[in-house]
């Protein structure tokens, strides 16, 4: 389980309107009754899709899209990794938005799905342009930190630590953390509550 280097994601986009989309909406609680993540993609946005036949995830023209375009504070709420897992298993490889909730961002990073932010204006423009041209190929480049859409190039942002995890292929952190070896036990041994005061 070494992780792959992720420099660039290309593919079609799927725009998702709205701000503060919480993880209960991405994958409602009743679908968390499971012991693996398998098959979660079938339930992504289950309730929203049922209530809104025009929901982007119901529209055939977006099938096969790999870049999700969102608004502000995407993924707030519960820490359930089921949310990014459902999106990833549906086919999402990267997410572009105005801002992300912190635990969601960390969960996406841990499974190799980069989340980058663009300005509010660019996020809006991107959603409009993808809705009008669902066939358009987008390119998210983590080296240059840009999003290419048609003949436009947008500036993208991501905390440097996470960015390097993708560029160095260390986003799956288990092995990186294991490399610390005995330093872990040494740190523990200095904590009074570990040694029993």
């Amino acid at each position: 389980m070494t992780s792959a280097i992720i420099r660039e994601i290309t593919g079609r986009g799927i725009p998702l309107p709205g701000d503060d989309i919480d993880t209960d909406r991405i994958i409602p609680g009743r679908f968390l009754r499971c012991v693996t993540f398998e098959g979660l993609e079938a339930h992504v946005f289950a309730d929203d899709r049922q209530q809104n036949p025009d929901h982007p995830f119901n529209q055939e023209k977006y099938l096969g899209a790999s870049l999700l375009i969102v608004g502000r504070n995407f993924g707030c709420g519960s820490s359930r990794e089921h949310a990014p897992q459902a999106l990833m298993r549906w086919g999402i490889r990267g997410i572009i938005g105005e801002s992300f909730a912190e635990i969601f961002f960390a969960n996406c990073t841990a499974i190799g799905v980069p989340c980058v932010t663009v300005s509010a204006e660019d996020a809006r423009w991107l959603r409009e342009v993808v809705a009008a041209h669902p066939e358009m190929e987008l390119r998210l480049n983590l080296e240059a930190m840009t999003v290419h859409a048609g003949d436009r190039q947008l500036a993208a942002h991501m905390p440097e630590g996470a960015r390097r995890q993708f560029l160095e292929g260390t986003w799956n952190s288990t092995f990186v953390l294991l490399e610390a070896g005995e330093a872990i036990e040494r740190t523990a041994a200095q904590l009074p509550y570990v040694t029993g005061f």
Partner: protein
Amino acid sequence: MAETLLDKVWRLHTVRELPSGQTQLFIGLHLIHEVTSPQAFLMLRELGLKVRFPNRTFATIDHIVPTDSQARPFADWLAEQMTVALVKNCQDFGITLFDLGSGRQGIVHVIGPELGLTQPGMTIACGDSHTSTHGAFGALAFGIGTSQVRDVLATQCLAMSKPKLRRIVVEGTLPRGVYAKDVILAIIRRLGVKGGVGYAYEYAGSTIVAMTMEERMTLCNMTIEGGARIGYVNPDRTTFEYLRGRPFAPQGEAFERAVQWWQQIASDPGATYDDEVHFDAATLQPMVTWGITPGQSVGVTEPIPEPEEVPEAERAAYWEALDFMSFRPGQRLIGTPIDVAFIGSCTNSRLSDLRVAAEIVRGRKVARGVRALVVPGSEAVARAAEAEGLHEIFQDAGFEWRKPGCSMCLGMNPDRLRGREICASSSNRNFKGRQGSPTGRTLLMSPAMVAAAAIAGHVVDVREVLR
């Protein structure tokens, strides 16, 4: 140099700086439950790894347990399967499990503190966003996802970036009928649901210092609703006295040495913060949410804002919320009929919450047509409440007295809203579909307000009831 609790605890738990620029942070206490751990154990098995510090992880079962009959096997086969997986994983990897009927089971954020597992100066992680609750003890406690649960199991560490720190100062005496729940709802309303992204919150000021540990837990619990992953209160006498004698707290002389260390962990006077905000307790009133995020709230006597009072950028979300809830701009929530009253969740299911609610329902009856339930946060809470006769007060009034679990906070078990029901709820999230019905509607409020609404059959100002 003067340091904050965040600085000190972060420094003491730093194993090393990672090539990515993040910190490899040692995790002092790891709590797990049945929903977010099975996949982590699966990954561990696939990698052929062991649990590095099995005695620093503790498990319980809370999210999917039924709260009426807890006889096994559960009627819900999926819930049963998750339970079996948790029991097996704990056995195979040598982890202590506080199982149903052990006397120690309960909502993970209720039992950690009550068993004395949660202590000042620790780093605490759990695959659950409300891990921020444990910050009430002066710990750095935060929610993680399943891959990070795997990391903690395998290495007892996480790769983390140190957050900035905002000090939230609340001064003054809370008016009668205004509780810790109202304080945190008011904070979230002012700072916004994403105001805390990138920050940890340090709660300070005379109001916080005067709070009991249970009130501080309610406050820290909903930190994540304000976007901050970590929220804490500096440890003090109240903290130490709460911990004294708890099963997993240091005992005897070790306890006195622990107190010494815990005192040193608190933020130093003169430490600097990235930001500071102030609240005046005297101006707060009981809060109620009217929307679909915990930031969409008003004081109970205030009207829902008019569209022009809402910042342009939030207006779409404002209309979406009103549409979902079937409320109007300018409407007041007092008088809004409710279908369900839920007292429970890791925010407000502790003994003090049940006492406050019981005081309000004593000798009264739940309004006709209202389904009302009390779900204690843990087996210990249930025991203590029953010893005081609280269950009888609730039952006499027409409440159902249930077994401990998360229950209708997220509706993963059979306790769910039906259709478009409106629920007065002491929980923490009013997201669309949160309480188990895709179209169900949640009004977040304090347990006292829920109790008062259950009796009246509609939203009331609890201050009127207390008068």
